[in-house]
């Protein structure tokens, strides 16, 4: 049985901080089909289009019929753990300092044999569920979990290496002024975060929800203005070393396009708050997050971007908003590479219109702040990189995968 995680003691400030390491992340191009599935929390393997054989390890020719048509499809996760071993020593520095490390061979119901990491609650000879997870190198690995959830399952040390569980971690919600930020603060407090820093800009401007925020025990309100470089730098200097997850809740939503808009002030604000704000956060918090990626139970773990799904395809009715979101998406992709040496995950959470004031005239379905917050927490608990929340986001993604040009035209109406 997994021992429940113990709230970590205060760090000894004279102790050297462990450097983050990662397992080998090199994979063939085809194997990154697993990475794509793991990023979204899917379990997908290659299934031969011609003879339907389910294939593993990933490859370029079907071992039954030599077909080269081997797309990745979702398959059943169940199987049996037929043999296990505990690696006691390794030449790889990452695993060397993490032994003993259990791995085993799982015979999947769907057919193939998969060498997988083993959750402590799995047993040789018993059934397991397989998950695809992103390890600290950012590449996908298979992890066998017990067939049914067990108590404290998320606290298994091997599994916690693959996830960004907020439990006992310190979180920064960058903007607590909005319903999104407030729902996020509440959700993280409920997920067991030990401190939820909530950034507020222009504290001389009152806002609804401040009292409710103050009532949440884990919340600590801090000054943070994403349009002010010095403010962001100062917050990182003061609290950066005890922030493990940054959730960027800053938003700037305005209807209107590019051509049919009078003046630059709205777009400038949008870029300043969304894109430049993100860059400021990245420069201020990125290095300290990266340095603390292996710093114990509450090591730094993740940077979360909340992005309109229209970062992927512009919605002209909210055209300048979409463009600013697209800039943030590109920046986030860059950050992913830059933060990976620290084992820090950059999680992008995509959503359609929200149930918030600036989407007032948009018809449903829309995403409620509490729903978005729960999806963010869940995504971190599972160690995902790309999360789509709500029906519109799923719809846009599905259409984009089939025919982006058609989607471009459809969003114009």
């Amino acid at each position, binding site marked *: 049985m997994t021992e429940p995680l113990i709230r970590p003691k205060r760090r000894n400030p004279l102790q050297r901080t462990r450097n983050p390491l990662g397992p080998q992340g090199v994979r063939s191009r085809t194997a990154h089909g697993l990475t794509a599935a793991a990023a979204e929390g899917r379990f997908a393997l290659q299934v031969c289009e011609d003879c339907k054989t389910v294939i593993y390890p990933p490859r370029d020719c079907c071992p039954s019929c030599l077909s080269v048509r081997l797309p990745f499809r979702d398959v059943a996760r169940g199987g049996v753990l037929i043999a296990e071993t505990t690696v006691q020593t390794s030449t790889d520095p990452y695993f060397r300092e993490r032994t003993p490390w259990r791995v085993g061979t799982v015979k999947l119901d769907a057919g193939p044999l998969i060498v997988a990491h083993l959750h402590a609650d799995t047993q040789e000879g018993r059934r397991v569920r397989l998950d695809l997870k992103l390890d600290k190198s950012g590449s996908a690995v298979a992890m066998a979990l017990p067939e049914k959830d067990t108590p404290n399952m998320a606290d298994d040390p091997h599994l916690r290496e693959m996830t960004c569980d907020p439990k006992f971690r310190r979180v920064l919600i960058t903007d607590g002024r909005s319903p999104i930020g407030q729902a996020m603060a509440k959700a993280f407090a409920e997920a067991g975060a030990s401190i939820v820093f909530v950034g507020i800009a*222009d*504290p*001389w*401007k*009152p806002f609804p929800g401040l009292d409710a925020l103050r009532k949440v025990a884990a919340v600590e309100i801090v*000054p943070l*203005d994403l*349009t*002010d*470089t*010095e*403010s962001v730098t100062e917050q990182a200097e003061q609290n950066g070393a005890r922030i493990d997850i940054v959730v960027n809740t800053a938003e700037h939503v305005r209807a209107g396009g590019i051509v049919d808009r009078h*003046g630059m*002030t*709205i777009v400038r*604000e949008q870029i300043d708050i969304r894109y430049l704000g993100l860059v400021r956060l990245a420069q201020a918090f990125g290095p300290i997050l990266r340095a603390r990626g292996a710093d114990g139970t509450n090591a730094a773990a993740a940077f979360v971007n909340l992005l309109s799904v229209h970062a992927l395809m512009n919605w002209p009715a909210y055209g300048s908003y979409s463009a600013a979101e697209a800039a943030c998406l590109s920046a986030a992709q860059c950050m992913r590479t830059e933060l990976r040496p620290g084992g820090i995950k950059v999680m992008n959470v995509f959503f359609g219109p929200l149930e918030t004031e600036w989407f007032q005239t948009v018809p449903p379905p829309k995403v409620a702040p509490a729903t978005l917050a729960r999806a963010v927490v869940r995504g971190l608990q599972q160690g995902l990189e790309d999360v789509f929340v709500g029906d519109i986001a799923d719809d846009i993604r599905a259409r984009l995968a089939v025919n982006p040009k058609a989607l471009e035209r459809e969003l114009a109406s």
Partner: protein
Amino acid sequence: MTVDVLSFARAIAAGQIRVVDLTQTLSPDFPTIVLPPELGQCAPFRMEEVSRYDERGPAWYWNNISLGEHTGTHFDAPIHWISGKDLPNNAVDTIDVAKFVAPAVVIDCSTECAANPDFALTVPFVEAWEARHGKIEPGHWVLLRTDWSKQDFAGYANLRDDGAHTPGPEPAVVKWLVEERDVHGFGTETIGTDLGQGHHFNPPFPAHFYMHGKGRFGLQCLTNLDLLPPKGAVIIAAPLKIKQGSGSPLRVLALLS
């Protein structure tokens, strides 16, 4: 009378003429005016370091700054308001530069404002001031001392559910100052020359409406007015020469004999 500017300069250097800074420091956390979110907003003051004796510039330190014409301690030109839009020489680059130096009277209502953030300056209040200190001469700045600049930023902005609650003049007194006393302009410590709730007046924002409508000027976010005498200070307030500018942040100095 002949006036010797060199003697004037020597007197300042020797401290015989005192220079008082009436300007708030331009910094990112200083409040700006907040308009309804659908409208364009005034840019707050922001600084981006270009280099600081480092790889971006080894021997020098400098910043790029961004701000609005009405950020921090600033000057309002007549072109700023619809009532002054067609007057000649109404922008900061076309105002006669001699007008950037003018005497000032300081009307103290700090006690009243401490008790009531919505204090409105009235004609009777000014007449009572004149009874003590003498008539307001033509061509003077009227500076409203509220001690509002001593507040923390939350109290300074004093935003509530129905907007800002900060002191200012009622319509009648502005009209009277322009028409009966030929004032140079109106200056305040608050964000804006008008009352925080000035949008409810008729006309709305009367300080802007009447002052700029008659080609007079505004000064806002002043500080240290409590160091000035009721009469006798000379104000230097020269805005930046922005092409067709509606105003600008500036250094406001008071000279005292």
